[in-house]
């Protein structure tokens, strides 16, 4: 998607009567990177899920646009890649099966076999691609989440706690992914890790928390 842009206007979220955050306004264009940081319970993951389009805001709006036109919900699925501790893939399927099946649901089957192979090699799971995900370690599952997020080359990549469960090689992989994403798209990272915050040019601090 060319000239991809994210606009957030007066965004707020509350659960029951508790306000998590309110009045957030910012915009991001290709090449921008944003770190969302704050205390535990301040809404970092909540905000990242709203930006990914899987959680509705209580007030305000999030708008994605490409070449000046708003992107419809159906196409949103192709615009966002999301990695989160709350995301799981299917334990009863292999890594390859997971990526194939989920791509078919997304109805994105262009050169699928090649893309699956490439992304599994990139995240270092090629050797274990035919093992069921249920026997993967937590670090391997985290790498598979990256494979899932990158498979459709999204213009916007949202990473919630990007290096959780990863060893040094895994952290290096994430840094490479971050570097590549900053060149071609928009990057959003939700984290408390100061090293990860420094990967981004812009920063939002959510204030409420526990």
């Amino acid at each position, binding site marked *: 998607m060319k000239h991809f842009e994210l606009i957030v206007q007066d965004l707020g979220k509350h659960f029951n009567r508790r306000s998590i955050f309110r009045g957030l306004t910012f915009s991001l264009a290709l090449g921008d990177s944003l770190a969302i940081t704050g205390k535990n319970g301040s809404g970092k993951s909540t905000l990242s899920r709203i930006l990914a389009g*899987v959680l*509705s805001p209580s007030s305000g709006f999030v708008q994605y646009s490409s070449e000046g036109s708003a992107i419809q919900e159906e196409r949103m699925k192709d615009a966002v890649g999301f990695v989160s501790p709350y995301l*799981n893939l299917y334990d009863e*399927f292999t890594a390859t099966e997971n990526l194939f099946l989920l791509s078919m649901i997304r109805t994105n089957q262009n050169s699928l076999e090649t893309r699956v192979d490439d992304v599994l090699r990139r995240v270092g799971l090629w050797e274990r691609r035919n093992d069921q995900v249920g026997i993967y370690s937590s670090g391997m599952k985290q790498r598979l989440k990256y494979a899932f997020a990158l498979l459709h080359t999204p213009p916007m990549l949202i990473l919630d706690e990007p290096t959780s469960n990863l060893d040094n090689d895994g952290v290096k992989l994430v840094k490479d992914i971050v570097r590549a994403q900053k060149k071609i798209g928009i990057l959003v990272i939700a984290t408390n890790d100061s090293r990860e915050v420094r990967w981004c040019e812009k920063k939002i601090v959510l204030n409420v928390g526990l």
Partner: protein
Amino acid sequence: MSSWAGTFAVVSKDVRSEWRTRYAVNSLLMFVVTAVSIILFALRSADPASDLLAGMLWVVIFFTAMSGMSRVFVSEEERGTTLTLQLVATPTVVYFGKLLFNSVLILFLSLIISLMFQLLFQEFSIKSYAVYVISLMLGSLGFSAASTIIAAIIAKTRSRGTLYAVLLFPLLIIPLMAGMSSTIKALEGSPFGEALPDFQVLAAYLMVMVAGSSLLFDYVWKE
């Protein structure tokens, strides 16, 4: 077109998952065998009338639906894969995919239940097959439509088991009564026209349930 491709991909995923784990099918088949066996033992010395057997048939189908149809959404919540599905599919694709899967499942199980009744109960003699097949299909699809939306509603709650039964039972009374009525007519050999009012009720129920659920599902699926 791409929505239907996504829908069938959801069904394909669920079928493959069920084939790999056999979680729902095994437990439901066991339930069906146990329930029909108990009915057989209870009625073995009696000459059950066709309306009693029709009622027993639909009781087994009813409790099969209550036992197993919630898994399409509850299993996604338990495995933490709801978010994954939300990232790859629109609510419409998810709803119709899950509805189709549940429909295939309940139709398969209804067929098994029906065959068991025909084999084990001499008095369960179908005199009008057209009426019987339409009754079984429309009734089962009605069960599937109601079960699917209620499963989506309760999947994120804590007291899923209780809430599912409490919310589902009132919704299933209409297809249950109409299904039993048309099945009795099939066993007694009534002409098609006599069963038509029951089919009209079942068809209308199915259309209203699917239309209403597909409109409401967006609000249920996305928090």
